[in-house]
């Protein structure tokens, strides 16, 4: 896309400075969590008192925390797999088939993105109480599945729109059944999207707090556990250590997912496949 343009945009100016400042605004506040998690003091304040791993040790020795961690990982994995399956099929349906009512259906599926979390939380709490299902990881899982599926679908739609529909048509014309077309053509081409969707929906479930807060019975997820610990000032350094770990994992997982997904899209535009 290199053409001589009459539109001259300076490369470095006030806007570039602003962009760097903006990134600092986004990232620096969060960086205080890992910074103070290594600080050898019960108080989260300057001056720093010296390096310690004490809070990480306390974190690793807390049973409640390890249970919550296990719950969150279990939940995240199940939600990621189910949301990605649902999202993939839904994305395939809306990108590949001409359907009446396609617009309203997409709007309906995207609704969880705009309904305030607290409303969904109490609505699910009410229905769980009234139907006698009771609160457990299962109810949190249903809530997380509902909020993750639209994201999975968005990721998959952008991936499926990225490659040529004719490849699937060709497979069909050559006599493959829909299932075999899916397995041999659609799936391999959609794989980067699927992996990105798995990682991103896992992170959504892993970090989600509001629904989990209302729907947690006796089994807490990690964010719910953290919320409980925040009330105790003496527990705060341990919360910082845990928060630093969670941020670290989320950053790595999401960065990889985004890099993998967007790189895939870029390859597509370059090579035409």
């Amino acid at each position: 896309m290199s053409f001589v343009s009459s539109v001259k945009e300076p490369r470095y100016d006030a806007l570039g400075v602003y962009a760097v400042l903006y990134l600092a605004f986004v990232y620096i506040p969060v960086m205080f969590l890992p910074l103070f998690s290594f600080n050898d003091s019960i108080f989260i304040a300057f001056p720093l008192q010296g390096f310690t791993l004490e809070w990480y040790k306390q974190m690793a020795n807390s049973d409640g925390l390890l249970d919550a961690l296990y719950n969150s990982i279990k939940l995240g994995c199940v939600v990621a797999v189910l949301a990605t399956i649902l999202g993939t099929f839904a994305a395939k349906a809306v990108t590949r088939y001409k359907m009446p009512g396609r617009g309203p259906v997409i709007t309906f599926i995207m609704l969880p993105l705009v309904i305030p979390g607290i409303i969904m939380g109490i609505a699910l709490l009410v229905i769980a109480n009234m139907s006698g299902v009771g609160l457990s990881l299962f109810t949190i899982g249903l809530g997380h599945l509902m909020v993750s599926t639209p994201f999975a679908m968005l990721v998959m739609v952008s991936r499926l729109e990225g490659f040529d529909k004719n490849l699937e048509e060709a497979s069909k014309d050559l006599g493959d059944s829909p299932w075999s077309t899916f397995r041999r053509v659609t799936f391999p081409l959609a794989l980067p999207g699927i992996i990105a969707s798995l990682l991103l929906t896992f992170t959504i479930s892993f970090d989600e707090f509001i629904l989990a807060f209302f729907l947690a019975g006796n089994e807490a997820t990690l964010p719910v556990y953290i919320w409980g610990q925040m009330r105790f000032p003496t527990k705060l350094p341990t919360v910082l250590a845990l928060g630093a770990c969670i941020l670290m994992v989320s950053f790595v997982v999401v960065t990889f997912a985004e890099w993998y997904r967007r790189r895939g899209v870029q390859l597509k535009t370059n090579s035409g496949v």
Partner: protein
Amino acid sequence: MTDRVAPAADVIAHIPRGPIARFRRALMRSEALSGYTMLSPTLLLLILVMALPIVLLVMFSFWTQNYQDIDKTFTLANHLKFFERSAYPYLLGKSVLISSTVTLLTVLLAYPMAYFIAFRVTKHKLIWLILITVPFWTSYLLRVFAWKIILGYNGVINSGLIELGLIVEPLAFLLYNPFAVVLTLAHAWAAFAILPIYVSLEKIDRSLLEAATDLGDGRIKRFIRITLPLSMPGLIAACMLVFIPTVGDYVTPNLVGGTSGVMIGNVIQSLFGRGSNMPFGAALSIITMITITVMICLFLWGTRSFRRRVA
């Protein structure tokens, strides 16, 4: 489409019959049917886990809490209670005001950033995009918590300023007020505003900008006449993505708001907690949702008439 070769008689003889086989063939023939079959698990999930609970929540708001039990006789008492005590409308109004401020601030701060990535960044666009997207996916609770330790009485800013010798006593006005809520929310929702604006800016046909320049428009005139109107869909989406969830937020006001920063979400949450009056909580949340919907409709109507006037 290529000509289909007429199937030979022996092939026709082997086409399976019976209702299941016929359904499968109809499925493969009709695009709409196969589309909806693939959508059905998702739609079923959303009907059961999203639509049904909300319908039930609306019904619930017409019932009464009787200690542990729920009295299911129809009543408007919960909704009327909202208007009887001025504290509730005031709190909802305050929540809307805080959210509107947050939305305005977030979008204004995000626009130049999105513009920068869309128009200035040429080489490492992927890195910039990832840098801006990653916070979008990471723990909301922790991002809010970070501000609590930053703004706290003995927190990062106060202890840092004391350490530098700039102040003697900690500044008490940093935490536990509406300002802290606005700042924290604007930070926590930053990425949600950048992405839609970036997408709409990226979609703008660059030749339109060239045409404007060739016809003698300066940078500012070009921005107002071309870039801004064409990025309106992204701006509108960004406003909605930030405004809707923040009105009902209770995490941020709970952690950094204090008594003066209380929002409607805190009341709703407490009504579902220990001192429970769930039907009244349901009524409050329904009223909140209706208010949000009305605000969004007014906003969309306003931006539409604005765009029509510009066009």
